């Protein structure tokens, strides 16, 4: 579709994303009950950053919205509509988007929620990218018969993974005593070196075998893709004793990598056959260098599509979680938690419309961009 409509929608999407990015980055400076810049008896200072009070200022620079997202306005509690008369004291700012049950400003909540949404999308996609690229690229690059290792190194590798896991799992039981930690490490290392030396001399362990890396990784991808992700996120997030946004980001990232890995793998399989990779190999470039310097940039285009869709789906997941109130702290404010307030009072349409529309805009913009990139690729 090379229509004007699609051009417009792409431009609008970019603007929406920039808008939300600005809200996310400058959230504390846009909506806060403290002044940004203040000049009073203490001199010039920044209350937003330092948390100082600003009383009887000679000069002060106030944020756009004078409400903090968690600040409670008891005068305007119990769902005050943005359109009705609000109980305002002289000089007090209106609640432009109304208030919720306990009198928090919805507009300030929305600005903070944009920050939460962008943080969730970015954080979980960074994790998903790291895992997805690692698994997708190495699996496709080495295929099923490119990576051959000796039985000795396989044994030593497994042994070191075991010892490493053991040490990490029981780290608390060694940490009381620093010399013991060092000593244990040293002993384990020596054991590995010794085992390596012994295995080197044994003939059966000198044999090489081919590691079917691609088969292993692609079945791994398949299994993870078949998992019902939203169900699992819900369960896994609730297992943490302390609810926090970072757990949610981590869990979403750990479950959202398969699509990235699949795109990366498919593209890598195409690239592998190209001349320039062959040439790089011929001049003796290391595999790592070929993957990072030559394959990675070429793979990024299709991966961007997966990242864009993954970004929006993790925003959707996080807002669904906070809508349900699971896995996130009780005072957490995001689009989902704002929306869930509306369930306590159906007449509060502003709590249904604004946050929902904000999620929709973000998700729609991201999807449009992803779609646009994939169309560009097809045309090529």
């Amino acid at each position: 579709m090379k229509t004007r409509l699609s051009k417009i929608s792409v431009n609008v999407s970019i603007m929406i994303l920039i808008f939300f990015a600005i809200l996310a980055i400058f959230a504390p400076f846009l909506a806060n009950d403290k002044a940004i810049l203040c000049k009073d008896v203490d001199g010039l200072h920044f209350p937003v950053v330092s948390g100082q009070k600003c009383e009887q200022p000679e000069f002060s620079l106030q944020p756009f919205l004078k409400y903090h997202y968690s600040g409670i306005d008891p005068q305007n509690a119990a769902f005050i509509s943005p359109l009705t008369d609000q109980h305002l004291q002289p000089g007090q700012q209106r609640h432009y988007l109304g208030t919720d049950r306990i009198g928090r400003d919805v507009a300030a909540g929305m600005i903070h929620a944009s920050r939460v949404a962008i943080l969730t999308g970015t954080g979980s996609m960074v994790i998903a990218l790291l895992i997805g690229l690692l698994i997708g690229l190495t699996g496709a690059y080495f295929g099923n018969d490119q990576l051959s290792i000796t039985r000795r190194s396989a044994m030593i590798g497994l042994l070191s993974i075991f010892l490493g896991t053991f040490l990490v799992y029981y780290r608390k039981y060694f940490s009381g005593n620093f010399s013991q930690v060092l000593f244990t490490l040293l002993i384990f290392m020596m054991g590995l070196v010794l085992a390596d030396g012994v295995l080197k001399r044994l003939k059966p362990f000198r044999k090489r075998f081919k590691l079917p890396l691609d088969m292993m990784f692609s079945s791994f991808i398949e299994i993870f893709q078949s998992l019902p992700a939203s169900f699992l996120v819900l369960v896994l997030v609730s297992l943490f004793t302390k609810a926090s946004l970072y757990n949610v980001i981590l869990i979403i990232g750990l479950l959202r990598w398969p699509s990235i890995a699949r795109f990366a793998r498919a593209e890598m399989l195409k690239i592998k056959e190209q001349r320039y990779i062959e040439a790089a190999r011929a001049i003796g470039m290391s595999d790592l260098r070929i993957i990072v310097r030559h394959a990675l940039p070429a793979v990024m285009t299709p991966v961007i599509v997966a990242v864009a869709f993954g970004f929006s789906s993790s925003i959707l997941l996080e807002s669904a979680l906070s809508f349900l109130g699971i896995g996130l702290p009780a005072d957490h404010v995001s689009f989902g938690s704002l929306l869930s307030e509306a369930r306590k009072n159906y007449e509060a349409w502003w709590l249904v419309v604004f946050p929902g529309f904000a999620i929709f805009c973000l998700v729609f913009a991201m999807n449009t961009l992803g779609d646009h990139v994939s169309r560009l690729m097809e045309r090529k």
Partner: protein
Amino acid sequence: MSIMTSFVLKKALLIIPSLVALSVIVFFLSKIAPGDQVQMFMAVRGSQTDRLSYHQQQKVYSEVYEELGLNKALFYISIKPAYFPDTLYKVIPASKKNVMKAWLRHDQDWEWIQLVFENHEALIGAADFFNDPELAFILTQIKTIHATADLQKARQLAIDLKNSTENNAVNVPHKTRELLSNYFINFLHDQKKTQRITSVFPTLHWHGLNNQYHQWLSKAIRLDFGISLTDGQPVSKKISMAFIWTLSYVIFAYLLSLFLAISLGLYTAYHQNKWQDKLISTSGFVLYAVPLFWLGTLAIVFLTTDIYGKWLHIFPDIGVGSAYESMIWIEKLGEGLPHLILPALLLGMHGAASAIRLVRNTAIVELKADYIVTARAKGISESRMVFRHLLPNTLLPITTALIGGFPGALAGSVVIEVIFNIPGMGRLLFDSIRQMDWPVVFAMVMLLGVFTFIIYLLGDILYARINPKIKYQSA
């Protein structure tokens, strides 16, 4: 053996290790879940423990603990540092175990810890026996010591306590005086224990079949997942009733989304880049970006209440009507069915939004294939071409993707069920998570996992059956 049979067998054999891995993962996840299961179990049983003495409370607690099998080893084997006792799992309750672990971490001397705790128990027994106020007072302080995970702090507390008892010449029964002094001697005994290098080496312990995982699995195979910690009902009974609710609307939603996706997907592909395509594709794309819970909330606020006009009040209120406990499930279902129409419609439409694109993109590729050109050249009717040639060839590559949506749907859409107050699987999961009713949660995870594997196996078999490339591939 035909290719077909071996293909199915291969897939079926792969499922067994996957199921074992799944059960191990689910089991260990259930072990890290927060909350004290024993306490919840006691509460659900209605055991009154407030009036009992500390000692009796401990006794009731350990009985339940043993009944739940929590004093057994976790798994068939365990790997621990050599200085670690292999009987630590028998210690009851968990709080005591944690303190012991923390002290072990600090001192690595299991024998000493055992001795001190034995002395502690003896003192508690004596205090219960003599019922002496002064001893009871000292004991409360000793209990604090034994609840302090930081060993250095615990030692300091013990020293303080010892000094104060000596200085004040407390008057405790003669027989317990010896116990007390023994306790202090043992606790503050400062031995220089030489730590051997080998004490940190990993050692393997074999616990045999009498372990928690084995117990859990052998029950789970018979669909016995224990009882719910909120109302004491069997977990399987709770899940089966919820499953019926979910199934009753999810089947409808799933079929609706399949129908919409396939018909609209083919239609848009056929009219590619015409206005029909643009309209449907764009609205599908827009709907795809709408969060389900927003859609649900909007629908409830506008369509099931009178608030925004009577003419908009099309659907019945949320919930599933007045279903009584005494009704059998089919009656309950009949009562609730009208309330399930709106959620099913929403779910079906939302599911279709993403699937339309999939069908459309595949169909566009197929439309350019040679067999379509040939069929048209031979002059068959367009409708015959679409239904006999295009439809099967479009569905073939996306069979797994379309079927794969089903297990997820059976888990119930949590948000839809929570919003519409339907007592289905998603709602059950939501409630159980909030109330830390872990037996229910992990039974659901396990069942859903098994179900996902089976559905995918069926999908693969179906794919192999309808795909001529596999069917006619002779050896």
